[in-house]
């Protein structure tokens, strides 16, 4: 096998790597050592300090530079004679189209989000280029091969949707710390420092009178003659005191729940303490917004300490003061960012004060940051192992060694004597709407839902399309592109605001819509079914898509999970504000085996199995393709494969809690 380094299949191969993060760095190094000589690498990210513990091609001095470029330069230092092309760009950019993908022999993914993975999957399907997909979290990792027609595609099996929470849980009845974080981040932070014009549920539920929303707007606006201390106290008393009192007045809500306690600033912090709260000189310079810190000005050091209600309140006031004092220009356009220390401090403090009010245990800044930032746990060793496994699969793909393709898992706990477990790749899912063009069904209120809702909640959020085109028969309803003339743009934006049934070509029950993404060369048909009532708790989108391979949110259990690495954690955030680290959440993917395993188990309970041991290779290759036989001395352990994975997953979940 070592002689492979000189093999023409490897030397002559043109390889595309998507992602130069945790897996990407390891992968690029292992590819170069293994004899690959033409490697292309795309990554839109720049280097951050928290990358340096595992993305070993990067140094402190590279912070802020393009990952793709620095990784290329670093590998060229020990392999100067190979060709590496780097692209500091988003893989979704239109120049990375099907023709671009067609030039490669294999595509290797080391990505950090579901959306980009889907996008690459579709381009690989359209360009008919094999894809090796990967992900890690903590000690768990996974590598899989996707070849059109031979194996499943990345979207054949369900991926759990990003966790969403019902609006009223967030606004009125939080029961877990994560609810408080979502409230602090998506509602309060967005209200105070973000775009004022955006819809925000902050006050809707907390008072009953219909006219209160205008009055509420005033509450969050700083008055002309108001000092920052007065303003802070007014906000504090409004959201932690007045709003809670209002909520308490609705007694029905609290019959089966613990009543929250209104908290007013005067009860927590005295006027004198307020005056001498922080030492702003220590808070960092105004020149570098990311150096401003309320912890520094308050002399709080350890991010893993649990702050008291008083400390949290001090941080709340200090952070607010610093935003207005040192970063006033940004107010109105800020989005929560886990790498913005002041934003993390504010959100931690606000979430903790709310938690205190609702009798929920408080959390340290370190923990809160992990939840708010959807931070994926990551270590170098798992990435190195996964990169090795990717290269092994890539070589099999280049040698067209179909029978030995494997999907591999890195496990945290020994399972059937294994820490690295290979399984047979899945067969294509015949009802997969991505690789087999099966139509989907959408239940929607055609008289009330606007085309915009459909575009945002279905086409973008669920189908992950970037440049969609929506057709009803031969009439175009909507389209995105650079080459549209003004009349078309005006026409489309008018359509966006219309409800479905009053579009120029009305969409009603029984209509079949065609949604197409020209860049991804992906087309999808959607049958529309009119429905008027939706359950706000379980169907917060107000529409339900069937046939789409996403795991429905499980009732209780799922609530305990922290938000996963890819996606928003609240119904209210439409955009993906969160950047997970370079690796994906394997939890998701391991659930995926469980789920698809169940599905596939129905027709043939032996469909999934581990592959045979090495000494029986010949026998195995003859016997194992698709219809798997258990050659491993006939014990019954194999049947447990998916159960084991479920166990691993639940363990992980519990640990994360």
């Amino acid at each position: 096998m070592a002689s492979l380094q000189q093999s023409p299949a490897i030397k002559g191969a043109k390889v595309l790597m998507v992602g130069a993060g945790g897996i990407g760095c390891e992968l690029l190094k292992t590819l170069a050592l293994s004899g690959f000589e033409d490697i292309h690498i795309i990554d839109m990210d720049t280097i951050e300090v928290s990358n340096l513990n595992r993305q070993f091609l990067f140094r402190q001095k590279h912070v802020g530079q393009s990952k793709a470029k620095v990784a290329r330069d670093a590998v060229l230092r020990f392999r100067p004679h190979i060709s590496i092309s780097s692209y500091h760009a988003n893989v979704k950019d239109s120049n990375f189209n099907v023709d671009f993908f067609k030039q490669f022999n294999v595509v290797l993914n080391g990505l950090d989000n579901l959306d980009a993975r889907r996008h690459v999957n579709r381009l690989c399907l359209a360009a008919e280029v094999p894809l090796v997909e990967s992900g890690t979290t903590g000690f768990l990792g996974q590598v899989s091969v996707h070849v059109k027609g031979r194996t499943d595609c990345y979207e054949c099996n369900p991926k759990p949707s990003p966790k969403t929470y019902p609006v009223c849980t967030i606004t009125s009845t939080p029961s877990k710390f994560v609810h408080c974080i979502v409230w602090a981040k998506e509602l309060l932070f967005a209200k105070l420092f973000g775009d004022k014009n955006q819809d925000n549920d902050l006050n809707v539920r907390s008072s009953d009178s219909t006219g209160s929303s205008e009055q509420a707007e005033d509450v969050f606006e700083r008055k002309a003659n108001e000092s920052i201390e007065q303003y802070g106290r007014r906000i504090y008393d409004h959201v932690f005191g007045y709003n809670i009192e209002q909520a308490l007045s609705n007694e029905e809500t609290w019959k089966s729940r613990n009543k929250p306690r209104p908290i007013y600033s005067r009860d927590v912090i005295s006027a004198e303490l307020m005056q001498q709260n922080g030492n702003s000189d220590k808070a960092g310079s105004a020149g570098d917004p990311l150096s401003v810190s309320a912890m520094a000005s308050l002399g709080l050091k350890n991010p893993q300490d649990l702050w008291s209600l008083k400390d949290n309140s001090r941080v709340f006031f200090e952070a607010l003061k610093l935003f207005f004092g040192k970063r006033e220009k940004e107010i109105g356009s800020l989005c929560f960012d886990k790498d913005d220390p002041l934003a993390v401090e504010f959100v931690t403090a606000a979430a903790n004060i709310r938690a205190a009010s609702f009798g929920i245990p408080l959390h340290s800044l370190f923990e809160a940051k992990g939840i708010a930032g959807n931070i994926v746990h990551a270590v170098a060793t798992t990435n190195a192992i996964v990169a090795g496994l990717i290269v092994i699969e890539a070589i099999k793909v280049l040698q067209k060694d179909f029978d030995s393709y494997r999907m591999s898992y890195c496990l945290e706990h020994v399972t059937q004597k294994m820490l690295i477990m290979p399984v047979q790749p899945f067969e294509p899912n015949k009802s997969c709407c991505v690789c087999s063009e099966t139509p989907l069904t959408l239940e929607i209120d055609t008289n009330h839902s606007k085309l915009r809702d459909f575009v945002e909640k279905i086409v973008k959020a669920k189908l992950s399309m970037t440049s969609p085109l929506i057709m009803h028969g031969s009439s175009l309803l909507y389209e995105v592109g650079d080459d549209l003339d003004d009349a078309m743009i005006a026409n489309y934006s008018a359509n966006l605001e219309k409800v479905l049934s009053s579009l120029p070509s009305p969409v009603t029950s029984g209509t079949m819509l065609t949604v197409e993404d020209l860049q991804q060369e992906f087309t999808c048909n959607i049958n529309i079914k009119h429905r008027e009532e939706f359950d706000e708790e379980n169907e917060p989108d107000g529409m339900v898509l069937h046939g789409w391979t996403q795991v429905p949110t499980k009732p209780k259990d799922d609530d305990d999970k922290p938000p996963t690495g890819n996606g928003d954690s609240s119904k209210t955030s439409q955009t993906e504000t969160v950047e997970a680290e370079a690796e994906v959440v394997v939890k998701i993917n391991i659930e995926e085996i469980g789920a698809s395993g169940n599905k596939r188990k129905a027709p043939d309970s032996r469909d999934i199995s581990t592959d045979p041991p090495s000494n029986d290779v010949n026998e195995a290759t003859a016997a194992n393709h698709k219809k798997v036989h258990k050659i491993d001395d006939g014990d019954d352990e194999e049947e447990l494969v998916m159960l084991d994975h479920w166990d691993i997953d639940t363990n992980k979940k519990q640990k994360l809690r």
Partner: protein
Amino acid sequence: KPSFGLYGTRKTFLFSSDSSKPILPCSSTLSEVGAGLQREFGFPVVWFGRCVIQVQFTDSGISRVLGFSSLLLNCLLIVNLVTRVRLEMEGEQLTEQETALYDRQIRVWGADAQRRLSKSHIFVYGMKGTVAEFCKNIVLAGVGSVTLMDDRAVTNEALASNFLIPPEEKVYSGKTLAELCCDSLKEFNPMVHVSVEKAELVTLGQQFFEKFDVVVISSCPPATKILINEKCRKLSKRVAFYTVECRDSCGEIFVDLQNYKYMKKGKADGPASECELRYSSFQEATSAPWGRLQRRTSKLYFAMRVIESFEEANGRNPGVFSVEDVPAVLQLKRKLCEAQSVSESFVPDTLLERLVIGSIEFPPVCAIIGGILGQEVIKAISGKGDPVKNFFYFDVVDGKGVIEDISSRAPEADSASSKSANIITQVVLE
């Protein structure tokens, strides 16, 4: 006699210098309590007469002082003691820089594990591709120090699989493998001290190894591995000992943690239990009678023993100079199988041929074996996670990463329940 105890889900220490009223019954002396605390948390305890202090420990150290009683002590002294304990703990806390750098991995293994890592010292011998991968992993993880030893000069083989060696001849000529790797590793993490030790491995005395918490030996004859392993075993402190070898697309890791106690995580959020593993030495583990091992034992175990026998008999590694070693290795295998009273097919010829002809490491396997070894060393230092006992194998052909528990001492438990057989004592602490 003072008292000293441990209870609860969080680590809450109750200690008292008042022997007449122990808070929790305990037979330790004052100095033993001090030593115990120092061992447990790495900070010295200074006693100010009679007092009782209750402190709450979290992952990051003392989170708060819960209370103290001291009828005979004046307030000043209490304040002194509390401040003292706090100060000592603060020195033990991770710096802001460390917290920022290690953020993602602290979320995996916790701040106390990170502290233990930063105080650990690793010795590494034999700088081939797999060991280079391993070193990269532990330097990134943030161990205290790494000491490298390998006086060999750069060869084509080293250049092929070791990414720590710059390929320009003018850079590498005149330097040893260890020196070149040291230069590269230093850049990966300025907080880790990487250095080179120049000496003959076999001449190193026992006390040399006392400086280390972990010893990793690679690419040297089996007799040397046995020798170093025995030296480590004779020390009063426990030194975790590992060997690692990769040939072609296969790899082997051997682990000796001697008697290793750790807290085993309970299943499904159940209580953690103390678990003790008893490891075999390298010699014991590599001399197990073949006939007694399970039929499903990884064939790589036997194949690697055949390769070792060749090395012992011929004084060199097979395949390094010539593929013509294949017939001799196969003949040796037949002899060994006969001596062990097992059939010849016990060790497949095809596997041995691969190992002899492809004696050079295959980079993806270096990454995998180096990754697993890194993980194992991190587990042993931090005391978190189930360690491998006592062999790990990976082969590209089947893609499996398998654990084997092999010793010549006691007969193998005959079922797959060897996992539970490992557990000698189980004390539920919760």
